[in-house]
């Protein structure tokens, strides 16, 4: 040590700091810091396995033992009789620590533990996924003995064990650090695995009697891991995290197992595209192919966790139906569509521009950019619509939406920057969820909420028809609410009520830091978003809108809504238009009120609009997929910017292939309003949407200036904030709930996190961990419909029907819940209705067979 302060000099003593000496280096760290972290801070690495900064200490592996001495009452520093686990012991004033670097005792203890860890290890590093990035391998080299003295018989196990379709366990490699089980218990709340047996037979598993060689336990209180409704062994949406934090290769994923070696991989930091969080991920690729994705470390967003969807669902980007060349379709004289044929970019752009110009002049062109865009792409779409196409007919909401929602977004979301954050979620004393299932629709939002509830800081309430497993794991309180009645209950909360449970909730929402989280589903409940604004005004609770898709917030901010220009500027505001027109160097912006998604589709069907530019929209996601198809069929020209062929491709006149996330750079905007910039991971000829749009505009005679993403970002930044009026708050009336006649029920529905979404295509192992689609209804409703628990329920409308196993659930009567888009349950396509609609329910005829 060279530059130490003179110990005589009085230093300002921060009462929250503790001064300790580690290997002769004095350091001050906050009270409560673990020795292992204090050492890290000053660059001293103590080997460890069970320790994980986001999990509670267990002190199980004993790899991190160090010598510790502490002052006694008289101030004499006394060594403790035996080495202590530095991962489990907090610093105390005057503590003197000697790690393996300065203590022979600590070094021997660590060598001893390492040798013991390896006696039963198969030492199969050459064939192990983890080899090359394995804490056991690395630390065995850095802190272990060169040779083993073990000459006896190793413990062996059959392997691998299938924990789920995705997660495989090699019990011989497992060092029983319990990181996986602690993650499952402490973070995810899914105890799908636990420790079993003891001593050298101790092992991780699902309590499978066959594996453990136990006689069946009958109805004993211990038993196999929880099962879902289908009787399938329970799997978790978060299980991939256990593979990542396993310090050896004991847990592997079926998707990545034996695919590559870490030293062959190139890693690119990136941002996940599957939900509105924009979780930090790392893409590992080899020779242009993505081999796997891992959670990145971003303390302000996803910490070190990601959902299995963000981890495993990436094959969609390179699926066989990936579009690689522009396509052009020739039409017959009478407009009949011919076959698509490959075309050059020059031809495709020329054809598209000519047809779009004609359609624009004949009535107009609508723009449906979809909800998955980056900031740059969304901005380019908005600019294209309002300059080259001269229209406000643009809406990125490829889902049920409403004018009320647009006002809500313009009023309470657009231009608000970062307001409620992930950090606020875990600190909020009270959180009310309205039309929002955090685990199914919010991804990592769920884990943050759970962090708060687990720490005893946060209480969660949910307005929903039933308590989901997610809500139960948040120790949440259900405010049973039939679909469509959200507005009524929220208004009761806003105006005050005598009903004791609601009164308690209202009071809780008045606490500093309380939050109301609303999901995109409220768009289809008239009056609900208006009521939510009244509630937050009345209680002072802060509001966050958490949509499902990564591009939703970018669309709101970049002006891909009919009534909004970038930065929350209302189209209806002349000053706002002037602002943007000046920035875009055009004389004026269109003033005619724009149509929303449903309006654009209706106008196409009515031939009021003649053309449409579509960006990666799945027709099945729209309010009425059948009507949407008819609308596109009626269009004179459909130009589609897509990564993969879709139903829209079948109707498109010009298909312009665009790059999937791994093949472009850009910035997502997550639900918080946080910019999530990412670099291009793979070399590719594919172009980002904004570049294609730039070319298209050029062919239309307009310069979008959208060729270069960085230039675009500068332009966006230069627009600055809007300090004029915002869109007025919506004041939509609630609609009286429909009457339910015998044999009918009100439909409730939301998306499950893992479902039939095309982003999960090509991932059978992941699909196997999805929750199975079931229909839920109350006992009385089931009885009235003549269905037993587990029997088949038929839900039908004039448009069609869905048959699923019925699960009797504690929920309001006359309500039936279906997953929105799961295998066998494509609600919008099959039934053509939205939640809140009245549907017929009867006993079904088909027995659904379970897929393997």
């Amino acid at each position, binding site marked *: 040590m060279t530059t130490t302060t003179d110990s005589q000099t009085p230093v300002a003593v921060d009462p929250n700091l503790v001064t300790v000496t580690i290997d002769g280096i004095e350091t001050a760290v906050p009270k409560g810091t673990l020795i292992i972290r204090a050492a890290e801070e000053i660059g001293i690495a103590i080997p460890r396995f069970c320790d994980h900064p986001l999990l509670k*200490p*267990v*002190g*199980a*592996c*004993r*790899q991190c*033992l160090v010598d510790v001495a502490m002052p006694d009452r008289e101030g004499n520093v006394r060594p403790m*009789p*035996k*080495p202590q686990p530095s991962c*489990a012991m907090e610093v105390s004033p005057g503590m003197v620590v000697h790690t393996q670097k300065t203590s022979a005792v600590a070094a*021997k*203890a660590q060598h*001893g*533990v390492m*040798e*013991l*860890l390896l*006696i*039963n290890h198969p030492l199969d590093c050459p064939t192990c996924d983890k080899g090359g990035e394995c804490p056991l391998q690395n630390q065995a080299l850095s802190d272990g003995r060169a040779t083993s*003295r*073990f*000459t*006896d*018989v190793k*413990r062996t196990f059959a392997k691998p064990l299938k924990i789920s379709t995705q997660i495989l366990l090699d019990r011989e490699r497992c*060092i*029983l650090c319990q990181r996986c089980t602690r993650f499952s218990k402490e973070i995810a709340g899914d105890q799908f695995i*636990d*420790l079993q*047996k*003891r*001593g*050298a*037979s*101790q092992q991780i598993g699902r309590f499978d009697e066959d594996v453990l060689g136990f006689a069946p336990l009958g109805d004993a*209180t211990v038993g196999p891991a929880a099962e879902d409704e289908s009787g399938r062994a329970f799997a978790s949406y978060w299980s991939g995290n256990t593979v990542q934090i396993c310090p050896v290769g004991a847990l592997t994923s079926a998707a990545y197992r034996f695919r590559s070696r870490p030293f062959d991989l190139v890693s690119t930091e990136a941002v996940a595209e599957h939900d509105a969080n924009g979780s930090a991920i790392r893409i590992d690729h080899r020779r242009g192919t993505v081999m796997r994705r891992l959670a990145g470390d971003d303390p302000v967003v996803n910490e070190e966790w990601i959902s299995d969807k963000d981890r495993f669902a990436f094959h969609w980007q390179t699926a066989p139906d990936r579009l690689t060349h522009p396509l052009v379709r020739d039409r017959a004289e009478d407009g009949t569509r011919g076959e698509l044929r490959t075309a050059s970019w020059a031809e495709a752009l020329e054809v598209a521009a000519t047809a779009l110009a004609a359609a624009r002049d004949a009535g107009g062109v609508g723009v449906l950019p979809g909800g998955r865009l980056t900031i740059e792409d969304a901005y380019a779409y908005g600019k294209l619509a309002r300059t080259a196409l001269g229209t406000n007919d643009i809406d990125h909401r490829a889902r049920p939406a409403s004018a009320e929602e647009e006002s809500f977004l313009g009023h309470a979301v657009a231009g608000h920057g970062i307001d409620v954050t992930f950090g606020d979620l875990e600190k909020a004393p009270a959180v009310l969820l309205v039309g929002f299932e955090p685990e199914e629709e919010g991804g990592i939002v769920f884990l943050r909420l759970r962090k708060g509830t687990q720490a005893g800081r946060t209480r969660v309430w949910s307005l929903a028809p039933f308590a989901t497993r997610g809500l139960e794991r948040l120790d949440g309180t259900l405010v049973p609410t039939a679909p469509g009645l959200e507005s009524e209950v929220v208004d009761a909360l806003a105006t005050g009520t005598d009903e004791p449970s609601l009164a308690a909730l209202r009071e809780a929402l008045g606490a500093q830091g309380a939050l109301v989280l609303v999901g995109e589903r409220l768009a289809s409940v008239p009056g609900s978003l208006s009521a939510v604004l009244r509630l937050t005004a009345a209680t002072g609770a802060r509001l966050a809108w958490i949509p499902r898709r990564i591009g939703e917030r970018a669309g709101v901010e970049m002006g891909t809504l009919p009534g909004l220009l970038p930065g929350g500027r209302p189209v209806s505001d002349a000053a706002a238009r002037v602002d943007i027109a000046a920035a875009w160097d055009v004389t004026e912006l269109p003033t005619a009120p724009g149509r929303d998604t449903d309006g654009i589709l209706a106008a196409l069907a009515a031939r009021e609009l003649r053309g449409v530019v579509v960006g990666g929209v799945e027709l099945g996601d729209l309010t009425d997929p059948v009507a949407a198809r008819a609308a596109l069929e009626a269009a004179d020209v459909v130009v589609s910017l897509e990564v993969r062929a879709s139903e829209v491709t079948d109707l498109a006149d010009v298909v312009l292939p665009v790059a999937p996330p791994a093949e472009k750079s850009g910035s997502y905007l997550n639900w918080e309003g946080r910019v999530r910039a990412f670099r291009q991971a793979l070399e590719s000829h594919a172009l980002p949407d904004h570049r294609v749009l730039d070319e298209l505009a050029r062919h239309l005679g307009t310069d979008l200036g959208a060729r270069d993403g960085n230039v675009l970002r500068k332009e966006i930044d230069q627009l600055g904030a809007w300090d004029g009026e915002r869109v007025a708050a919506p004041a939509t009336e609630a609609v009286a709930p429909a009457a339910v006649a015998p044999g009918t029920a009100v439909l409730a529905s939301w998306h499950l996190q893992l479902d039939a979404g095309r982003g999960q295509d090509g991932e059978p192992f992941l699909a196997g961990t999805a929750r199975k689609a079931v229909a839920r209804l109350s006992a009385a409703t089931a009885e009235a419909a003549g269905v037993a628990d587990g029997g088949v329920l038929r839900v039908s409308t004039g448009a069609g029907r869905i048959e699923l196993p019925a699960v009797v659930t504690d929920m309001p009567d006359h309500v039936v819940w279906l997953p929105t888009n799961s295998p066998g349950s494509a609600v919008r396509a099959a039934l053509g209705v939205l939640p809140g609609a009245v549907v017929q329910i009867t006993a079904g005829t088909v027995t659904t067979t379970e897929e393997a």
Partner: protein
Amino acid sequence: MTSLTPILTRSWGDETPWKLESYEKAGGYEGLKKALGQSQADLVQLVKDSGLRGRGGAGFPTGMKWGFLPAPDGGPRYLVVNADESEPGTCKDIPLMMADPHLLVEGVAITSYAIGSHHAFIYIRGEVVHVYRRLLKAVADAYAAGHLGKNIHGSGFDLDVTVHAGAGAYICGEETALLDSLEGRRGQPRLKPPFPAVAGLYARPTVVNNVESIASVPAIVRGGADWFTSMGTERSTGHGIFSLSGHVTRPGQYEAPLGITLRELLEMAGGIREGHELKFWTPGGSSTPIFTAEHLDVPLDYESVGAAGSMLGTRALQIFDETTSVVRAVSRWTDFYAHESCGKCTPCREGTYWLKQILHRLEHGKGEAGDIEKLVDICDNILGRAFCALGDGATSSITSAVQLFREEFEAGMTQPASELFPPERSALFDYTPRRSAGAAAGAVHA
């Protein structure tokens, strides 16, 4: 010459000592009535003054442990009695509960009152079904007689007692593993702090005491601290049960003041079996380093045994004569620790697995060069590195045996223990060599 002090064992020879009427006739529950008339603080002080030290092995002062509980905060606090007795050689709590369960129940009632607990648990080793039943019956009878339940003897003090049978794991005797097991979790020790006194059962302040510790309380209440300290040594006061097993003429439980010697105990027990002589013994169970005839006069109190290099532990004196192979004895004990290791920490889980294999080799005359050094070094890597005392205990007999009888381990390089020390010579009963698994399979359950 020290003589026996039958206090806990007083009634064991009686006709039906386990019945409530027998117990009451002999003055049972008088201590409880007396205690209920005193202040809680006085009771805690009384036990502090008596110098009673935990009889579960570690010898921690019982009154001081009670005093560690934080001030009442209105929430529950618990007494948990550790009746898991599983240490090889230890056999005192089980016979005590078998013969005189009310003595424990009375101790539980007094202790609960003293520490302000309204719910006490007795965690009993599950294999001893008969003792479990007897204890259940005793608790039911005590409720019926008003010694437990609401408003005990009009004092206003309420107490519920739950008897819980464990599923048979040595580790569940470790107090924090016991608490996890009692809560319905996997029985593995907890990280400390927090200590049970602060956050024990259901994360509430909890006192965990051994059966014998708690059963000693009624007599202290009746006899007073001075009476108790009149027995034993200055720092190891009172009486305790010494369990003698193995090659003694009359094995069994001998209750005597702490500080008695093995020589004295052996005299009472009729000495080493006829025609044989003492070879080695454990002072406190298999987890304590072994002694030899050299230690016959070591006073069996915490300090003296400690000074002589072992531990008083649970006063489980397993006695072996010259016919016994140290290697085989140590190998059996090690099998036990390997079997009972809970698996939580690396040193104990993996270390006992390894030690067991080396010892098996040595026992069968198949030792390899360096095995003894390896044994000792592995023990060094476990002792003080393991998560709990089970791992430490696993090493005690090995290291001490190698020190005292190294030549026997060396012989294990070439000669099987069964040749050097034919097992039938050590057996107290007719020795039937184990049949091979194949031959036995058909015969079992015939």
